[in-house]
């Protein structure tokens, strides 16, 4: 008897079919992967299992009985626990208060008893937590622990994790896997949603692969090659290998000198003595888990926050105190992390959004807008970057994530920037768009532009960056050529350990990293001894 079985689950939204006739089976004590690219329908399926969303067709069986999950509270009663990709935590409440809210009234009667249980359970599974801390003061990794411990306190029989490793350092991933193995050994089923093939092969017993809402295959990951898995995820026409040559930059364009900054925002991360340099014709990648100062650093580069004049330089010119529009005139292009609501105005048309950053060129004259030129520019972006939209009058929010991202990047690239800064350029974007975006970035680099990429996707950084570094707690690691930095080393940098010398023999693998970056590889280093500095 399976712990959980899904038959023919279908869910439609206006404009797309999120899940179509999906079948899934997970045993007690089994770690089952749900693989698929962004937009394949994984999150929707999990929301159906958890009762947040109701399916249009299909049935669900729990421990042999047919059931209909009425809502998250019901799911929890059954023993289904879910750790969301975007945490459902309340930052102004403590750990204990957060957990109390998701437990049924009877179990949360005494807050003191609950705090005890939290300490016991979290230690048992190697995820130590202080129940009195406010959630906003926790690191992202620690916040995820709260989500997991919350499930563990409810006698969970099926634990669902939605892309849990995207916010963890490699060492934190190790810890998580240990916990999951322990849980599985105790009889708990685990549903692990991911698009990272190497992790799935390291952790999971079985896998179901989703492509465009449908099941494209089942397999045993350890017996399947990365290529076969990738094929099942993306189909036959998408190229699997992206082969980018590394380059060396010429003259320095962006230069940041000893930048320390504390913003007024109480939730912000303070930057400490940051120095970096990006040369024309190279891509510098900054790795790091969210919340370590990337946001603040990028704001100081774009001009949305200003600092002392002599801390940021564009081609030797001091720009630290300049606001965004002045920096754009000097050659800045910026693709922010938030595409809807910052990079583009959601309710405005693509035409209007083209004007958002292009207004200082030919598109306006003496304060008057040249509508024809704006239309032409918008149309040009759509054509050159293969943006699927209903036309230049389509509202930005009506585009899919990938298409909007292509539009925004295209808008910047077509303005011929001398420095292009990209924050998480392919986050939440479908595979086709992601490949096009990376391709365009490398092409831009080859034309002599200086490019800075901040990303949580380590594979992507290895694929396109010429030099790489990491940011942790507002401090920057040393910068080095990508092929000189192993994953393990980068992981330690991401955890704040900038001085560790990596004697690992895996360094020899770096030549593999250099010549061909497969889709979602290289292999994770499984033998890391130290756990690194877990915050």
């Amino acid at each position, binding site marked *: 008897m399976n712990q959980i079985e899904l038959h023919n689950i279908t869910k439609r939204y206006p404009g797309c079919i999120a899940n179509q006739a999906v079948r899934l089976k997970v045993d007690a004590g089994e770690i089952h992967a749900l693989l698929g690219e962004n937009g394949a329908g994984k999150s929707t399926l999990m929301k159906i299992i958890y009762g947040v969303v109701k399916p249009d067709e299909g049935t669900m069986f729990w421990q042999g009985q047919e059931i209909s999950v009425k809502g998250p509270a019901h799911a929890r009663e059954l023993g289904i626990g879910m750790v969301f990709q975007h945490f*459902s935590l309340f930052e102004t409440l403590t750990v204990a208060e957060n957990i109390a809210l998701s437990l049924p009234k009877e179990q949360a009667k005494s807050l003191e008893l609950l705090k005890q249980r939290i300490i016991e359970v979290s230690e048992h599974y190697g995820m130590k937590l202080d129940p009195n801390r406010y959630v906003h003061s926790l690191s992202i990794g620690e916040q995820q622990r709260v989500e997991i411990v919350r499930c563990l306190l409810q006698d969970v029989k099926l634990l669902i994790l939605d892309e849990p490793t995207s916010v963890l350092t490699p060492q934190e991933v190790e810890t998580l896997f240990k916990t999951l193995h322990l849980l599985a050994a105790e009889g708990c089923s685990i549903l692990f949603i991911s698009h990272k093939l190497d992790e799935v092969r390291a952790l999971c017993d079985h896998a179901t692969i989703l492509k465009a809402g449908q099941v494209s295959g089942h397999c045993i990951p350890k017996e399947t090659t990365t290529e076969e898995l990738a094929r099942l995820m993306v189909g036959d026409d998408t190229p699997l290998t992206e082969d980018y040559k590394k380059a060396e930059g010429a003259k320095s364009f962006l230069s940041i000198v000893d930048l320390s900054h504390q913003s007024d925002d109480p939730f912000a991360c303070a930057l400490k003595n940051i120095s970096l340099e990006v040369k024309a014709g190279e891509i510098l990648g900054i790795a790091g888990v969210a919340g370590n100062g990337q946001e603040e650093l990028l704001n100081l580069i774009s001009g949305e926050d200003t600092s002392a004049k002599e801390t940021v330089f564009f081609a030797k010119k001091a720009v630290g105190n300049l606001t965004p529009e002045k920096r754009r005139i000097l050659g800045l292009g910026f693709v922010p992390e938030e595409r809807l609501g910052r990079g583009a105005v959601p309710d405005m048309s693509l035409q209007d959004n083209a004007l958002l950053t292009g207004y200082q060129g030919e598109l306006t004259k003496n304060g008057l807008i040249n509508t024809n030129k704006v239309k032409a520019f918008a149309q040009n972006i759509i054509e050159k970057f293969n943006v699927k939209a209903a036309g230049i009058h389509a509202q930005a929010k009506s585009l899919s994530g990938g298409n909007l991202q292509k539009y925004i990047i295209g808008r910047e690239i077509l303005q011929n920037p001398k420095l292009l800064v990209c924050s998480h350029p392919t986050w939440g974007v479908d595979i086709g768009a992601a490949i096009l975006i990376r391709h365009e970035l490398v092409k831009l680099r080859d034309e002599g532009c200086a490019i800075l990429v901040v990303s949580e996707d380590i594979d992507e950084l290895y694929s396109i960056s010429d030099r790489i570094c990491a940011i942790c707690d507002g401090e920057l690691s040393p910068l080095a050529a990508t092929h000189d930095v192993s994953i393990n080393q980068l992981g330690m940098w991401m955890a704040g350990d900038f001085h560790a010398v990596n004697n690992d023999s895996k360094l020899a693998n770096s030549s593999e990293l250099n010549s061909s970056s497969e889709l979602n590889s290289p292999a994770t280093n499984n033998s890391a001894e130290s756990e690194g500095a877990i915050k």
Partner: protein
Amino acid sequence: MDFELFTNILYATLRTGTPLILIALGEMVCEKSGVLNLGQEGMVLMGAALGFIAAVVTGHAGLGIIAAILAGMLMSVLFAFLAVTLVSNQVATGLALTIFGTGLSGFLGAGYVGMAIEGIAPFPIPFLSDIPVIGKVLFSHDPLVYFSWFMFALIFWCFRSTRLGLTIRAVGENPEAANAIGIPVMKVRYGAILFGGAMAGLAGAYLSLVYTPMWSEGMSAGRGWIALALVVFASWKAERILLGAYLFGAASIMHLVLQGLGFEASPNLLAMLPYGATIIVLVIIASDAAKAKLSTPLALGQPYRPQV
């Protein structure tokens, strides 16, 4: 200024502050659940009008109070339907409620202008009210003043130590997450809004049945708006609302103070005082931007509808 005048001023301050406390406590609960209801003025006037009408028609002030509470709740249900169920712009909807409530109260109350009724008499607490000074100032009030203290204590306790308080705060911070863990967000918000409406209606009844037992159009004179400022001033903390309400109450009766001190001033200039004081208070609070950010319910004013 003699002693008796001083006592009277304190006494009057407490009375003047009471409607503000009621409205502000109600709106605080509403805002803690993430909903900004700018319709206080309309709800208060409806409470005042309907409360007065009911008292005149039935002859019982007590029934007037009940009618007022119901009137406030009815108005707030209208608001809740638009703002929560139909996810409308909360600022505009609140304004609409104010304009509608002001107009409707004027319309319904038109035939009752100029009438006089008994009103609700003060109820001095035996023994305690005989204590010199404090007895008059604290224990010789009408029941609604005592009720306002009781509500303060109830709400303070609710948000300090109960699951309900935690739930409301959660909904106000992150309705998305609350929905994901199974909290019925819309129900919680409806409840909070209705509570705010009931309190506003009650405050209206206080004005037309106790404070100055009569009805006239627009008699709340902006108290609803001052109460909204009060909630911001109090950083959404019940104890600060009490303090702030009495400060504003004092500002409103400045003419008594000045008379007592022997000054004469134009009543119109003095009438500006509470409004000016509100502006000053808003400025002081907003200047501490970091602190303001931490205490504001994070999802305040943002329309939210769970996606099924």
